[in-house]
């Protein structure tokens, strides 16, 4: 009786000590890990992959490429607004979309407005200081045909320690010359989050 009680006590102490030690495990970057239930890399990746997949399977793509024979449509990724209730780094999300689109090989993607400003500054510098042989020509940029704009919206239904988090990502592809909306895509994520009532 006494020995089993002591073993029990020892087990409790071991458990408590284990809880105090920081543990680190390498995990696959593509693995789905959710800790707090907030927007994370998994959501960003899944949405961007879904968007890239949907973007080229819709009728606009065939029609548009037929109109500009011999080349791929040129895309610029514009502003994706975060209207959700979380601090979402839209830049990482935008980058995920960019990667998915470039890797598909169906569109040419040009530098974003921020990058363009830097590149233009660099070309102006080259125009003044670089040798003629290596100098890059001004006014020779690839003009974008279409722009991708969007927003991340969220609705959170909370009741006590339980909540349902719903994210709606809306993206619109707009023809820059005509302002015509070519495609509107929507991705949704719904999560049920239950916070613990008790901790050790």
């Amino acid at each position, binding site marked *: 009786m006494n020995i089993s009680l002591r073993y029990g006590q020892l087990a409790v102490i071991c458990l408590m000590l284990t809880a105090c030690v920081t543990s680190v495990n390498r995990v696959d970057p593509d693995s789905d890990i959710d800790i*707090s239930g907030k927007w994370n890399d998994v959501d960003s990746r899944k949405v961007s992959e879904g968007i890239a997949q949907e973007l080229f399977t819709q009728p606009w793509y065939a029609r548009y490429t037929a109109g500009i024979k011999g080349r791929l449509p040129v895309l610029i990724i514009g502003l994706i607004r*975060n209207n*959700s*209730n*979380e*601090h979402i780094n839209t830049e990482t999300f935008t980058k995920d979309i960019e990667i998915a689109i470039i890797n598909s090989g169906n569109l040419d993607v040009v530098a974003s407005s921020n990058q363009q400003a830097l590149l233009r500054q660099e070309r102006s510098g080259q125009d003044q200081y670089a040798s003629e042989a290596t100098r890059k020509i001004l006014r020779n940029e690839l003009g974008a045909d279409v722009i991708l704009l969007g927003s991340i919206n969220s609705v*959170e239904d*909370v*009741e*006590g*320690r339980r*909540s349902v988090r719903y994210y709606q990502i809306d993206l619109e592809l707009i023809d820059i010359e005509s302002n015509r909306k070519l495609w509107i895509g929507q991705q949704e994520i719904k999560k049920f989050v239950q*916070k*613990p*009532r*008790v*901790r*050790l």
Partner: protein
Amino acid sequence: MIKAQKHLPKSLALLKWGLVLLTCLLVGCASTPKKGYKNYLYEGNIPEAENILNGINANNDKLLREVQLASIAQLKSDFKSSNNHLETGKKLAEELAAISVTETLAAISINQRVSKFSGNRFERIMIYFNKALNYIASNDAAAARIEISQAEILMQEWRIGVERFPFIPLFLALIYEKIGDIENSLVAYRRAAAAYKSSESTPDILKKGYLQLLAKYGRQSELARASLQLKAKVAASPNKASLIIVVPRGFMTPMDSFTVYNFHPEINKNFLIALPLYSEYSGVRAAPLLSLKQQAKDSANVIFENMVNVELGMRAALKRQMPAITTLALARAVVKSQLQQQTAENSAASFLVFVFNTVTEVADTRSWDTLPQAFYFSRLELDPGSYSLNYADREPMNVSIKKGVNFLFLPNYR
């Protein structure tokens, strides 16, 4: 021998009283260091206050330390660092929101100070509010909007209405107005108007902002209804810009404690419990004196109103917590009494238990004491342009007012 045994309890009782006195003196010495961070803050010596706070071992007070350092960074106008501390504090508070089994057991057997500081509800809302203010000061209204939205979600989690913190939807309305999201701003204004119980208790900043927005966007029927409800009228000023000035004032009164030493008939014992309390409310520091002057025009004094009375909010939060705190203290008294009863036969052990019980019986007076007593707000409708602002002992400040809603956050509690 028998005589000595008879006299022993009496002398022990005397000794007990002596120990109680000594403990009280010791506890008193321990809780009042020579010069604490608050003294330095009152003097305006922020670096020294920061040094002291950084030097105190946080242990169970990590969350408290983060929010205190956040206030200090805010006072230094280092809004980024302040938000880093608040973010860490927010995460800690989320983790600590669940009831801890071990900490509850420790609180029942020792005292509540041995558990981790998790902040009361008012303090938790203040984390989001201050973060939003820091974002506003950093010209990031979109991020401020997220913070206040999260505070509202937290209220839903607690199953409490916005009436408890009516300044939250009001601040959200102002932020939406700043962003230019008129529909959401109106929704937030409506909710804030409903949250304030009467038109008398409704801040002017709400009346002005809400009615002006309705007038500006031609919502005539709602304007008539809202004017009646709020008992206020405004003239539309489409070409004016709005300036919202936010000034925190005073320092939150530190929490005190009181001890109850009484006889309990059910346990047939004397018991000692220590409980936290605030000294009598004597108001908050007056509104700041601030004047604004446009070139070649007379300067005008800015009229402020106390939109967030932190002092009252913190006191109300403690009042709500008191039943739970008292229950825990009584449970602790029973546990300690049982322990003493078990060691009654051994006078040395009984004495040691008595000393332990007395020394450890201290109230949990930890609170976010670097908060200001109040956040004063003022809304002015001005012509866009350049203004000179005179505030306290500072050099006159140049303020550029652009079309739309402009925010000015002046963190100086003194």
